């Protein structure tokens, strides 16, 4: 029975007994959805449909319906891919790394963070698929000999590393998430009244894999969680490093940069936490979890955002320094062009959102202010999208031979696919928030005695 110093602020407010927690967590699943939920869901659904149409049109007609050209072969597609993958990092990071560091405050947010990870990675994974000229041949990227003999895949290609990294990351996060979900599904199963809800009962008892909470199961459960956390942590770092290799291993000035892996990981955590903030601040209101997702949680996350934000800022400056110091004219021009060329606005939006605005988090007043936090989180999300746009488009549009320099501007299909993917993401997340135990209640109960308000009195 671990104890905790009384100075630490409580992570659970109010006099919550075990039973209260059970009820609070089960409530959104068992109760009816409120109007707000339906409105948000409706909007997301519309966007999702736009996404379906845009993707259908692209696959039916050809990549030509996007704004790309002979010089700029990637733009919004890969920008969105990297953006979503980045967002997908916070979840596993929170549950895995914080678990290893025994950070109790993770317990009330890890479930949703992981959910976000899963859904974000789903979005991310879409882009490499639909950005192909011939997506129906996408299976060529798997290590199977092709139909015309033993022509295999090319393991030298960072894009193939991506295939392995993303699929591993996705499946492992999914499993990690589910292992944690099983006891909570069991709880819901036992809460559902078979008389009124025979189907729900059936569904949840299936989902719960017949969990019964035997001592031995719990022992294994904790072991598995720990090992998975241990595996997921390096995984998180590897995934975005590998994504950054797509650029770092190329020869294009502005892409060919050795600091990309750490820089991308920091950026990923940065954007990931921002997205978690955005979602949780909404969710704690909508589903009423103020008691569990406290201002303390928000503040902790803001500190992480500020830290990673500064790491990213340092990376930006390092890039500029290296460009200057390298003495390579192409390199120097690439970065000069970012800041002063036709896409200067993208560069400076990125700087403002990612480097300048997080500095405000130094003030406790601001980082504990919910509304401010929410706005700033949005800023960071936008800024991080711009970061990827800047890296991809402004590097490509003016590379080695001035004769091939060109410009990119998105078509309505580009926009549709991007905005649509956000809609898709929220559809998934909203459905989750109504059907899944959004807080890891079983594990949360373990800290009631140590960190809840009433015990600290």
């Amino acid at each position, binding site marked *: 029975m671990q104890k905790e110093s009384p100075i630490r602020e409580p992570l659970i407010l109010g006099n919550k007994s075990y039973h209260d927690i059970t009820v609070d967590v089960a409530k959104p699943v068992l109760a009816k959805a409120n109007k707000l939920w339906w409105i948000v869901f409706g909007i997301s659904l519309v966007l999702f449909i736009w996404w379906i149409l845009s993707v259908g049109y692209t696959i039916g007609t050809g990549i030509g319906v996007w704004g790309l050209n002979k010089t700029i072969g990637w733009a919004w597609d890969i920008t969105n891919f990297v953006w979503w993958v980045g967002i997908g990092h916070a979840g596993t990071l929170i549950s895995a790394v914080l678990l290893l560091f025994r950070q109790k405050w993770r317990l009330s947010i890890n479930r949703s963070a992981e959910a976000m990870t899963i859904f974000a990675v789903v979005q991310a994974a879409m882009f490499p698929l639909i950005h192909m000229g011939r997506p129906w041949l996408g299976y060529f990227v798997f290590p199977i000999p092709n139909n015309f003999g033993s022509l295999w895949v090319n393991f030298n290609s960072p894009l193939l590393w991506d295939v392995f990294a993303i699929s591993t990351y996705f499946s492992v996060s999914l499993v990690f998430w589910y292992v944690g979900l099983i006891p909570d599904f069991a709880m819901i199963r036992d809460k559902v009244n078979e008389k009124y809800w025979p189907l729900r009962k059936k569904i949840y008892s299936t989902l719960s894999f017949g969990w*019964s909470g035997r*001592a031995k199961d*719990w022992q294994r459960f904790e072991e598995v969680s720990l090992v998975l956390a241990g595996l997921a942590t390096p995984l998180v770092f590897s995934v975005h490093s590998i994504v950054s290799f797509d650029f770092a291993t190329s020869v294009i000035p502005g892409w060919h940069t050795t600091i990309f892996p750490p820089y991308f990981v920091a950026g990923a955590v940065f954007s990931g936490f921002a997205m978690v903030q955005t979602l949780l601040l909404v969710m704690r209101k909508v589903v009423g979890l103020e008691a569990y997702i406290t201002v303390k949680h928000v503040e902790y996350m803001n500190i992480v955002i500020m830290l990673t934000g500064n790491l990213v800022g340092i990376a930006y400056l390092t890039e500029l320094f290296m460009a200057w110091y390298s003495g390579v004219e192409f390199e120097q021009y690439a970065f000069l062009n970012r800041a002063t060329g036709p896409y200067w606005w993208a560069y400076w939006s990125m700087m403002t959102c990612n480097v300048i605005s997080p500095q405000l988090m130094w003030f406790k007043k601001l980082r504990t202010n919910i509304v401010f936090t929410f706005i700033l989180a949005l800023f960071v999300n936008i800024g991080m999208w711009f970061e990827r746009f800047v890296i991809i488009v402004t590097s490509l549009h003016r590379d080695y031979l001035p004769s091939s320099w060109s410009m990119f501007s998105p078509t309505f299909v580009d926009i549709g696919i991007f905005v649509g993917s956000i809609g898709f993401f929220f559809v998934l997340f909203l459905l989750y928030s109504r059907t899944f135990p959004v807080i890891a209640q079983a594990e949360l109960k373990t800290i009631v005695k140590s960190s809840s308000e009433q015990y600290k009195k």
Partner: protein
Amino acid sequence: MSKKVIYGIFDDEEVLLKSVKEVRSNDISIKEVYTPFPVHGLDHALGLERTRLAIAAFIYGVIGCIAAILMTYYIMILDWPQNIGGKPSFAYYLNMPAFVPIIFEMTVLFSAHLMVITYFFKSKLFPGQTSSSPDPRTTDDKFLMEIESEDEKSISDLLKKTGATEINVKESA
């Protein structure tokens, strides 16, 4: 006289822990304990030995690593070595640096998934499985100790004494 199953239900994990120690000190064998969340020290108190899932995970990881090495070797060097961007495909060690990411990912993939599968297998967790818990409240806020014995009376007394809030007795099947 027939065997009975006695269910002692507790409200608090600390009480449960004490009671478990008490019961075992009277060398009564506890059949099973059901709790809504992991109770620290319970496995110790029950005298369960450490799980070996971690070791399994390590072995799986090694398998994954070897599998990845063999795959990349066969595909890139043995079966059809190509000149791809001038990267040397004459011998594995020359081309290997390019495969490190693949090898790492495969290692994690194998170790994570196989371990979880083992876990599900050992704990008999799978879709369609039904809960073995005698009382649904054990997933909410109740802690349940299951003891099988002929001497119902003394056991229930002992449980009561050690703080069980409720005792149910059932003919064992």
